[in-house]
C-alpha cells in the first residue's frame, strides 16, 4: 500500500501544491522560531560570556542612602577603596576594576536629547585602568583618543559619539540626575553591552568624577576581580568573601555570574519563543482546515478507485492506512521544505530586527537537531491528524461503487448533529463571554474564563459555519446575480453546493480575521482610552517634565512663566494622601494657576476654595471614603506618618490630569518626592504661534537632555505609540495565518474546478465564453472569502467587546471603539483575497478542452 500512497502523492502533485505550501509555511514558522530562539540565546550568552571572560570574581555592593549628604537621593555603598586594596592584595588576584554605575543622558551636538525616553539604557561608569602604571582599561578598548583621566573629561562609545555628532575635543552636554553638565570628549571606546547596542549610550568618566556624580568619594558599586591563569576561582571567591564585611556586599564567582546571566537570557528568549510559537500554532491550526479539506475532496474524487481497491480485496484498514501514509509522505516533504525556509527566515530575522534597533549581538546560526526533529514531527503530525477524519470516509466507500457506471452525487449527509453541536458550542461560548463582559477586572480567573469562552465561541462558529453559509451566501449571491447575471448566479449555486467544503474554506480565513479584528478593536479602544487619560481634563498646550524620575526644581516654575509666549504656567507637584484608610495620588498646585491649564468639573465647591488645609477630592475618592464637601478628616501626607487636619472644600470629576485630591503647593510640596516638582503645565498665549515655543521653554530651563516638553499630541502618542507598534507586529505575525487561509481558498477552488470540468465544458459548449467562466470562478471565490471575512470580523468584534470590560479596573476610560476604517479595510481584504485566490483556478477553469470535458463519460 506504500506504493499506492506514493503514487497518489505524485499523481496529484498539482492538486497538493497548495496543501503542501500551507504545511511548509506553518512548519517554516515553527522551525524559524526555534532556530531563531536558539541562535539569539547563544549569541546573547556569548556576549555575556565575553563581558565576563576576564572576571574571576565579582564583588557587588548594594546601595544605600548616603547619611553624610543632605540630598535625599545621594547614594553610598559599603565598598571602599581600602576594601578594594585588600582584595587586590589577595594572592592570585591580578587585577581589580572598581566600578561606579550610573546613567547619563546625552544631548546631541545640535541639542536634541539622545534616547531620553529609555534613559535606563544610557549607561555611565568609570574608566579604571587595569593597573596603576597603565592608562588602558581592557573592558573598554579605545577606538580613538584616550580614556578620561581628569574631572573635565568624558569618553563615549564610538557609536554614541557618531550618533550624537561629537568629535574628539568637542564639549559634550549631558545630564545625570541633577543639573546639565559639560565635559570635553577625549576618546571613544568600543563596547558590546547589549543595552548600548540596543540603542542606549555609554559615557565614561575618571573614577573620582564618577564617584562624585553617582555615588560618594572613595566608594564603589562593584569590583571586577581578575585572576592569574590556573587559579581556583571558586576558592578565590571564598577567600575574598571572608575578607569583606557580609552586610551590603555579595561576592560571586565569575562563572556563577555567567551562569545566572545565561539563565536569565534563556528565560527571556524562551518567553519570546513561546509567544512566536503561539502564532505559529495558529497558522498550523488554519493549515489543518486546508489539509482536511484537500483530503476530503481527494477521497471523494477517488471513491471509484478506492471501491476498486476494496473490491479486489483491500481491507478498510488498509484503505485508511494508505490515506494516512499519503498524508504522512506529503507532511514529510512539505515539512522538510518548511524547515529549510524556516532556517532562511531565522537567518534573515536578525539583520531585519537590528535594522530597526533591536541590537541583537552577532553569532553563528544555531540549528539544533532538537529544533529540526520537533519541526518535522509537528509538520507530519498535523498533516496526518488533519487527514484522519477524511480517511475514515475513504474506508466507508463500498466495493459496489466500483461497478456503478455513472458518477452519483454522494447522498447528502445529515448535518443535524453537527449543527446541534455547533449551536451548543457557540451558545456556551457566547454565554461565557457575556458573563466575562460583566466582570470588571483582569484577574487571572477572569482572563482564563475569557480565553476559554473565546475558544468555545470560535470553535462553535467553525462547527456551525455550514449552517450559516446558506443564508449568508444566498444574500451575497443575490448581489452577484444582480451585478453579474448568469456568472454570478452559477457562482452562488456552486458556493452553496457543498456547505461543508465552503465552510471549511471560509473558516480558515475566519480564524485569522477573528484574531486580527479582535486585536484591532481592543487596540483602538485602548488607544482611545489612553488618549482620554493622557490629555483628558487638560487644557494646557505643553507639559514639562523630567524623564529621569528626579522631578523638576521648583525654582524653574517661575522661569517658565517668564518665557515670551507663555500665557499661563502651573507648576504641579504630587504626593499621596491617606484618608480614612484609602490612598490616592495628591496633586499640589496653585488653584488659580491650575484652573487656567485644566478643565475640572466640580460637582460641589470649586478650585478657588482650595487653600491651606483645604483640599478638593475626586468623586471616586469621595465615594470611597464617604467624605463630602464640608467634612474634616485626618489626612496622612506622603509615605511617612505625618497627619494633618484637612477640610474638604469641593468634589470634582476624576481625570488622569490630576490625582485623586488637590491641595496647595505649600501643604504638599514638603511631602513630594525629593521636594521637587512633578511637572509644569504650560498654556501658550493665544496670539502666539506655538511653533518653536517648546524649544524656547527648553532653553529657558537649561535645555537638559532629561527635560521633556510635550504637546498634547506627543503626550497621547507616548501612550498610544506602543500599542500601534504592538498591533503592527501582531498583524505581521497573523499575516502568515491569513496567507495560509488564502491557500485554502485557492485549493478549494482549484479542486472544485477540477471536479466540475464537464460542467464547465457544457457551459462553454452552449455559449458561455472564457471570460464568463473565469468570472464564475472568481465570484465563487469572492463569495466564500467574504463569507469567511464577515464571520471573522463579526466574531472578532464580539470577543473584543466582551473582553473589554476586563480592562476597566486598570483603564477606567475604556470604552469599545470600533476602528471602522480598519474594519472596512479588512472586509476589502476579504474581497481582494477572493479575487486573488481565484486567479489560478479561474485560468485553469477556462483552459480545459471542451471536447474532453464533454466526452469524459
Amino acid at each position: 500500500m506504500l506504493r499506492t500512497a506514493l503514487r497518489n502523492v505524485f499523481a496529484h502533485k498539482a492538486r497538493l501544491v497548495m496543501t503542501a505550501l500551507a504545511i511548509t509555511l506553518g512548519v517554516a514558522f515553527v522551525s524559524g522560531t526555534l532556530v531563531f530562539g536558539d541562535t539569539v540565546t547563544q549569541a546573547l550568552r556569548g556576549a555575556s560570556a565575553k563581558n565576563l571572560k576576564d572576571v574571576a570574581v565579582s564583588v557587588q555592593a548594594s546601595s544605600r542612602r548616603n547619611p553624610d549628604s543632605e540630598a535625599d537621593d545621594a547614594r553610598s555603598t559599603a565598598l571602599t577603596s581600602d576594601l578594594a586594596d585588600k582584595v587586590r592584595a589577595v594572592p592570585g588576584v591580578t587585577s581589580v576594576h572598581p566600578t561606579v554605575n550610573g546613567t547619563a543622558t546625552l544631548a546631541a551636538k545640535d541639542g536634541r536629547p539622545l534616547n531620553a525616553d529609555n534613559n535606563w539604557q544610557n549607561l555611565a561608569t568609570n574608566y579604571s585602568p587595569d593597573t596603576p602604571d597603565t592608562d588602558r582599561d581592557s573592558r573598554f578598548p579605545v577606538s580613538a583618543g584616550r580614556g578620561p583621566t581628569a574631572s573635565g573629561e568624558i569618553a563615549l562609545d564610538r557609536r554614541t559619539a557618531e550618533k550624537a555628532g561629537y568629535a574628539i575635543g568637542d564639549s559634550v552636554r549631558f545630564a545625570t540626575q541633577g543639573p546639565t553638565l559639560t565635559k570635553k570628549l577625549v576618546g571613544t571606546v568600543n563596547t558590546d553591552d547589549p543595552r548600548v547596542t540596543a540603542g542606549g549610550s555609554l559615557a565614561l568618566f575618571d573614577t573620582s568624577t564618577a564617584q562624585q556624580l553617582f555615588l560618594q568619594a572613595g566608594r564603589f558599586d562593584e569590583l571586577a576581580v581578575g585572576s592569574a591563569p590556573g587559579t581556583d576561582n571558586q576558592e578565590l571567591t571564598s577567600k575574598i568573601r571572608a575578607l569583606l564585611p557580609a552586610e551590603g556586599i555579595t561576592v560571586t564567582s565569575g562563572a556563577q555570574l555567567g551562569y545566572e546571566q545565561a539563565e536569565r537570557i534563556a528565560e527571556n528568549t524562551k518567553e519570546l519563543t513561546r509567544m512566536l510559537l503561539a502564532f505559529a500554532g495558529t497558522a498550523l491550526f488554519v493549515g489543518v482546515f486546508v489539509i482536511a479539506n484537500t483530503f476530503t475532496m481527494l477521497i471523494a474524487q477517488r471513491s471509484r478507485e478506492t471501491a476498486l481497491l476494496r473490491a479486489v480485496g483491500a481491507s478498510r484498514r488498509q484503505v485508511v492506512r494508505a490515506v494516512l501514509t499519503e498524508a504522512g509522505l506529503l507532511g514529510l516533504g512539505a515539512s522538510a521544505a518548511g524547515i529549510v525556509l524556516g532556517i532562511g527566515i531565522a537567518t534573515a530575522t536578525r539583520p531585519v530586527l537590528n535594522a530597526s534597533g533591536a541590537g541583537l549581538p552577532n553569532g553563528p546560526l544555531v540549528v539544533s537537531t532538537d529544533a529540526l526533529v520537533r519541526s518535522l514531527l509537528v509538520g507530519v503530525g498535523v498533516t496526518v491528524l488533519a487527514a484522519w477524519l477524511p480517511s475514515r470516509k475513504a474506508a466507508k466507500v463500498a466495493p459496489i461503487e466500483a461497478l456503478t457506471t455513472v458518477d452519483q452525487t454522494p447522498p447528502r449527509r445529515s448535518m443535524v448533529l453537527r449543527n446541534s453541536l455547533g449551536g451548543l458550542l457557540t451558545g456556551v461560548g457566547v454565554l461565557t463571554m457575556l458573563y466575562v463582559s460583566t466582570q470588571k477586572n483582569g484577574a487571572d480567573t477572569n482572563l482564563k474564563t475569557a480565553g476559554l469562552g473565546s475558544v468555545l465561541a470560535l470553535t462553535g462558529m467553525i462547527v456551525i459555519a455550514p449552517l450559516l453559509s446558506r443564508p449568508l451566501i444566498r444574500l451575497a449571491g443575490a448581489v452577484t446575480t444582480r451585478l453579474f447575471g448568469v456568472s454570478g448566479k452559477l457562482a452562488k449555486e456552486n458556493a452553496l453546493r457543498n456547505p461543508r467544503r465552503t465552510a471549511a474554506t471560509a473558516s480558515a480565513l475566519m480564524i485569522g480575521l477573528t484574531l486580527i479584528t479582535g486585536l484591532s478593536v481592543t487596540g483602538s479602544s485602548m488607544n482611545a482610552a489612553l488618549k482620554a487619560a493622557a490629555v483628558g481634563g487638560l487644557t494646557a498646550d505643553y507639559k514639562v517634565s523630567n524623564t529621569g524620575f528626579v522631578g523638576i526644581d521648583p525654582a524653574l516654575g517661575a522661569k517658565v512663566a517668564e518665557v515670551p509666549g507663555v500665557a499661563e504656567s502651573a507648576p504641579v507637584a504630587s504626593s499621596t494622601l491617606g484618608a480614612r484608610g484609602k490612598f490616592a495620588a495628591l496633586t499640589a498646585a496653585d488653584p488659580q494657576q491650575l484652573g487656567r491649564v485644566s478643565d475640572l468639573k466640580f460637582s460641589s465647591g470649586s478650585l478657588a476654595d482650595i487653600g491651606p488645609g483645604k483640599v478638593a477630592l475626586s468623586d471616586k475618592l469621595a465615594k470611597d471614603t464617604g467624605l463630602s464637601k464640608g467634612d474634616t478628616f485626618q489626612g496622612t501626607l506622603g509615605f511617612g506618618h505625618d497627619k494633618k487636619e484637612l477640610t474638604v472644600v469641593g468634589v470634582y470629576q476624576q481625570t488622569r490630569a490630576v490625582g485623586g485630591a488637590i491641595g496647595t503647593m505649600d501643604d504638599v510640596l514638603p511631602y513630594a518626592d525629593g521636594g521637587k516638582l512633578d511637572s509644569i503645565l504650560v498654556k501658550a498665549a493665544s496670539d502666539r504661534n506655538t511653533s518653536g515655543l517648546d524649544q524656547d521653554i527648553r532653553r529657558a530651563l537649561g535645555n537638559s537632555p532629561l527635560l521633556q516638553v510635550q504637546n498634547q499630541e506627543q503626550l497621547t502618542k507616548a501612550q498610544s505609540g506602543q500599542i500601534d507598534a504592538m498591533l503592527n507586529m501582531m498583524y505581521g505575525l497573523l499575516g502568515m495565518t491569513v496567507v495560509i487561509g488564502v491557500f485554502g481558498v485557492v485549493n478549494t477552488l482549484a479542486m472544485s474546478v477540477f471536479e466540475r470540468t464537464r460542467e464547465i465544458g457544457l457551459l462553454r459548449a452552449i455559449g458561455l465564453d472564457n471570460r464568463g467562466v473565469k468570472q464564475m470562478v472568481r465570484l465563487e471565490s469572492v463569495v466564500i472569502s467574504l463569507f469567511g471575512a464577515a464571520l471573522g470580523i463579526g466574531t472578532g468584534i464580539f470577543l473584543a467587546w466582551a473582553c473589554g470590560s476586563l480592562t476597566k479596573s486598570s483603564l477606567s476610560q475604556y470604552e469599545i471603539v470600533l476602528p471602522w476604517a480598519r474594519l472596512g479595510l479588512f472586509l476589502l481584504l476579504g474581497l481582494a483575497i477572493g479575487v486573488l485566490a481565484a486567479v489560478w483556478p479561474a485560468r485553469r477553469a477556462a483552459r480545459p478542452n471542451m471536447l474532453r470535458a464533454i466526452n469524459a463519460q
Partner: protein
Amino acid sequence: MSMQAAAPVPAHFSTGSAAARATGLCKVYGQGETRIVALDSVSLEFGRGRFTAIMGPSGSGKSTLMHCMAGLDSVSTGSAQIGDTELSSLNDRQLTRLRRDSVGFVFQAFNLLPTLTALENITLPMAIAGRRPDQQWLDTVVATVGLSGRLSHRPAQLSGGQQQRVAVARALASRPEIIFADEPTGNLDSRSGSEILGFLRDSVREWGQTIVMVTHDPAAAAYADRVVFLADGRLTDELLAPTAEGVLDRMRQFDTKARTS
C-alpha cells in the same frame, strides 16, 4: 402530439438552402507516427429544415465531424460553415457567440448543470446571452416535451429521460439555426429514447428546425429524413427516407465490403 398552433416560424426555417456545409473538411490529430486522420476530405451539406443522421462504426469520425461542424473543435484544412459563416475564420469569442446564438446541443450524458432547476437549465443559453426568453415559445416547447410540472426540479430529482427532455427543450428554446445531437439516446431505455427522437423529428416537421444527429443505432437513424454513412473518415454513402431495416442493411453491406476488400 400537435405542434400546429405554435409561434410563427422563423424566416430562415423555410428556405431550402443548406443550414451547414462541409467542404473538403480534414481533421488530423497528432504528428509523425502518431498522426491520425480522423476526417479525410469530407464534403457535405445539411439541408435547412431537415433531420440528418450521421452513422458509422466506432472510429469512423462521425463525432469528430459533428464537433467540427458545431464549432467545438478546429478544422485542419477545408471549410466548415454554418449558414454563410466560415467557422475557421472565427476566433474563440466569436465561436462562443455563434454556438450561443445559432447552435443547440443535446449530448449523450451530462447535459445539465446540477445546481440549476430544469427551467433555469432550459433558459441558460439565453441567460448567458443576457436575453429574455420568448415566453410564448418557451411555454410551447416546455409543453411539447411534457415538462410543465417539473420546471422547478433539479436534475438529480429527474429521471434520465426527463433530464434528456430538459436538454432537448434547452436546445429548442433559443430557436437556433441548427441543433447538434450526439448520441442523444445512448444512455436511455428504448421507451424514453423513442420519446426523445419523436420530439426531435416533430420539431423538424412542425417547426422546420434543422437537426444533425450522430448515432450508431439504426432505429434512431430511422427517425431522420436522411442518413449519411461515414467510414475511416470518409463519406461512403447516404440514404433518404430511411427505415431501420434499410439502415441496418446498408451497414451490413459495409461490413461485408470491409471484410472482402
